């Protein structure tokens, strides 16, 4: 069979080729992630000032806010990849969505837990229905929905495609959901100013925040590359099994 010139992206749908690429990138992102996390935590926990109102518990923000940001960025990336997969039909795009989803869900969950832990010292309740937490909760279920859908099909390809369509619908609905939750929040809690966005950012608080965001981002890149590699390998194994008449 003739070996035509394979377009660049298609080449990396081959696990061996992708493994070589990720093998070059991984050590750097993993290392960067470890360093940024160490630095970020140091500045967050030790070298930055406590808030004059909230005291030490404001430090939870350094986990809560980056986690919230990542949870939304990851969903956006998933939607972009889903669109790319539908338009260009590239295997890597659909697999990226699947690889990234548990990470996005984890970030969302982390944001919710951190928010809950923050809420207890602040307002004496383990959960408050503020706009951000409520939106994050709905986003968490959007992630769970994707994860459940993708695994619910006997034919993995069909599952990936269904999941991609779901993510695209979700990303269109996400701003609407956030807007409506915001509205709902102001409707029902006009007096109190319960907000999770925290105090105004002082320069000394900005640095650890940026470090933590960087740490989470490099961590995400590292793990998503690892998961992509294993998804490609799983796909290859399935193909061999089918060819051998195993399934």
């Amino acid at each position, binding site marked *: *069979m003739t070996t035509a010139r*394979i377009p660049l992206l*298609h080449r990396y*749908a*081959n696990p061996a080729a992708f493994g070589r690429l990720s093998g070059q990138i991984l050590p750097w992102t993993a290392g960067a992630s470890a360093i940024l996390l160490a630095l970020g935590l140091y500045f967050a926990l030790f070298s930055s000032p406590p808030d004059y109102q909230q005291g030490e518990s404001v430090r939870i923000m350094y986990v809560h806010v980056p986690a919230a940001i990542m949870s939304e960025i990851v969903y956006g990336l998933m939607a972009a990849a889903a669109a790319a997969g539908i338009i260009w039909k590239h*295997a890597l795009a659909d697999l990226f969505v699947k690889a990234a989803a548990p990470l996005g869900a984890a970030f969302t969950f982390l944001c919710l837990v951190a928010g809950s832990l923050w809420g207890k010292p602040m307002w004496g309740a383990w959960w408050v229905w503020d706009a951000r937490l409520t939106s994050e909760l709905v986003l968490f279920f959007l992630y769970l929905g994707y994860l459940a859908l993708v695994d619910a099909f006997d034919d993995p390809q069909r599952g990936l495609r269904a999941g991609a369509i779901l993510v695209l619908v979700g990303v269109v609905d996400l701003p609407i959901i956030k807007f409506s939750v915001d509205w709902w929040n102001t409707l029902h809690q006009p007096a109190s100013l319960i907000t999770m966005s925290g105090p105004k950012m002082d320069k000394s608080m900005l640095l650890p925040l940026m470090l933590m965001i960087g740490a989470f981002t490099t961590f995400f890149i590292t793990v998503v590359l690892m998961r992509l590699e294993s998804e490609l390998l799983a796909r290859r194994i399935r*193909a*061999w099994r089918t*060819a051998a008449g195993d399934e």
Partner: protein
Amino acid sequence: MVFTGLDFAVPAGGALLLTGPNGSGKSSLIRLMAGLIRPYSGRLEHDGMRLSDDPALHRELVAYLGHQDAVKPMLSVAEGTRFWASLRGRRDKAEAAMAMMGLSDLTETAGRFLSSGQRRRAALARVIAGGAPIWLLDEPTVGLDVKSIAALEAALAMHRAEGGIVVAATHAPIALPGAGGFNLADFEPENLADEEAA
């Protein structure tokens, strides 16, 4: 990947017979020709025009008969046939189609009272009434008795005489004089090298 390297053409009035063991891809090829499945690579053309460029035309051209009969238990044979025919603007052709498949006595019978052979005949009547030029039939004779198979063969001959095309995947013998054809087992992908691009 189920098959690779297929290259065929069917003229007006012609027929194509697909054979092969289960799992060789006969149904997949029929569904592909209907437009329900997209090929991994390759193209489907009609009169020199790529069908992927005009899905609406593709749908107008084909009538599909799958493994299932799509006969609703609560609808009578006539109601079902007339509905599908009316979607193609050919409601008046439903009676003749049902008669051709020997269903004239069963037109008011609800689907849930039909035997599997009768349901198959109803599905075939639907294909006949639709008037599409290309008939794609997946195991059309399942459950049919000798008389019904003869009726089907007559319908196929009439369709081809009018310039229509018949593609049939079948285990059972069916009279399709002058039909081309091939065995899908001959087109299995050779080795994993073909999977590289997948």
